[in-house]
């Protein structure tokens, strides 16, 4: 593809993807409030628009218009930088996620993905591991004991669970033999015995289990939301944040949830693969639909877990990560390696 159409296509794709991602983040918040509300026998947001559908817009305007406080004794440069670090790295990882096959416009074949790199999965792991700094620095720079405890907990928790997360993905990598997310999905096409899809979830069930738990811990969600445990730490690392700076942490958390859902879909559930039929436009749209549907299921599970489980104690969290999840991921890795080599 020549340079100019390539740049034009990339810019258009980036704008569309960022727009959709931010909308998805806003509506995930709405979905969470609605679903958790119904689980707890409440209605959730109902006042703004039909079914409260305009609530995200109202929240956004509220965040923008509220007074942006900077407490007097904070370490200002880092206090300002921390939410930006969190949100930038949370949004970056979407760049390598493929969400469909490809379309042909004006003779150019454009894959439905901002960019396909050979080391896509490693890039996502790297970007999420940098995202820890947002939380850790927010906790430290706030000059508040609750924030500091939240930041310390977040960094210890994220380092610990990152190992299990990485090891649980190696099994999938052995099966597909590539770091490129597109090839990983393409390696899952076909059927076992003619009726079960060749998704990695079947041979790699324990890896999926490990991945999902470790990913919940990485995104600081219930039952691992100790960095912001409101019953013990006020609000944890974002105690001192208000208005748009707080909203940035909020956006980062939900964007990370969506990334986790996308990765789980791509690595274990065959990405955009699914029954495809009909005329040519439908053949492009249906894969995207399957992908979005699978990601939506993961987001729903996230919310379901939040509505169901209580929070861990901190020593339980650490013991679980190191004494159960890590050995499980290792055993799964060894078993996969033995089966593949044999």
């Amino acid at each position, binding site marked *: 593809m020549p340079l100019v159409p390539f740049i034009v296509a990339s810019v258009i794709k980036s704008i569309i993807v960022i727009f959709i991602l931010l909308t998805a983040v806003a509506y995930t918040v709405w979905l969470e409030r609605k679903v958790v509300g119904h689980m707890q026998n409440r209605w959730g947001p109902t006042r703004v628009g039909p079914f409260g559908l305009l609530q995200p817009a109202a929240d956004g305007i509220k965040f923008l218009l509220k007074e942006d406080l900077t407490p007097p004794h904070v370490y200002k440069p880092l206090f300002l930088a921390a939410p930006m670090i969190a949100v930038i790295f949370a949004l970056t990882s979407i760049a390598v996620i493929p969400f469909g096959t490809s379309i042909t416009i004006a003779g150019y074949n454009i894959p439905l993905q901002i960019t396909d790199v050979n080391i896509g999965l490693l890039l996502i*792991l*790297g970007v999420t591991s*940098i995202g*820890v*700094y947002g939380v850790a*620095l927010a906790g*430290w720079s706030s000059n508040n004991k609750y924030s*500091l405890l939240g930041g310390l907990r977040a960094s210890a928790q994220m*380092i610990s669970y990152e190992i299990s997360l990485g090891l649980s993905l190696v099994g999938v990598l052995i099966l597909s033999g590539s770091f490129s997310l597109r090839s990983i999905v393409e390696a899952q096409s076909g059927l076992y015995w003619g009726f079960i899809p060749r998704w990695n979830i079947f041979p790699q069930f324990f890896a999926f289990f490990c991945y999902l738990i470790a990913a919940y811990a990485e995104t600081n969600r219930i039952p691992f939301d100790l960095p912001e445990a409101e019953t013990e730490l006020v609000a944890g690392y974002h105690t001192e944040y208000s208005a748009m700076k707080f909203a940035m942490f909020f956006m980062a958390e939900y964007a990370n949830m969506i990334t986790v859902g996308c990765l789980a879909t791509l690595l274990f559930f065959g990405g955009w693969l699914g029954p495809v039929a009909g005329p040519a436009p439908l053949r492009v749209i249906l894969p995207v639909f399957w992908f979005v549907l699978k990601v939506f299921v993961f987001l729903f599970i996230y919310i379901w877990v939040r509505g169901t489980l209580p929070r861990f104690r901190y020593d339980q969290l650490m013991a679980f990560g190191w004494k159960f999840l890590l050995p499980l991921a290792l055993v799964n890795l060894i078993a996969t390696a033995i089966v593949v080599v044999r």
Partner: protein
Amino acid sequence: MSIHLIMFIAFGVVCVAGAINLLAQSHPINSALSLIAVMGALAGEFLLLGAEFVAAVQVIVYAGAIMVLFVFVIMLLNAGAEERTQGSRVAIILGVPGMILGSVLLAWVVLKHSGTQAVAVGALPGPPSTIGQLLFHQFLLPFEITSVLILIAIMGAVVLASKPEAVQKRKEH
């Protein structure tokens, strides 16, 4: 001026600025953050050399794990700004000219004797599969030895960082 050279210079400037900032800052957390910037820019340089896997590991292991550990310890000990003491004067008197002299000498030797052989963009692609082949065949023994090293380091860290009273109690039992 090729795009390769421009990107090399851009990443290089970030590297050097980060390294100098590490020295100039008095608070350890600022030093840690500038070191993270250096590591990120170095990952960019690795990508220019084609070592994509090394670049990814540089970000994941160095910037994402080792430096988080540093930031964690700085936060845990609530380390404040550095106190200047008299003892460092000799180091400054000897160190600054020594560093400048050493750098100039090194740069002169390198520039004079390495000629103008150029390294192209992605000169030596290091795909993960090839690196894995090398690591588990040709370098299997060093690889195993480093795993033993890591194990020893973990045990050492646990023993060192555990509270002295806890060690005492264990001995009494």
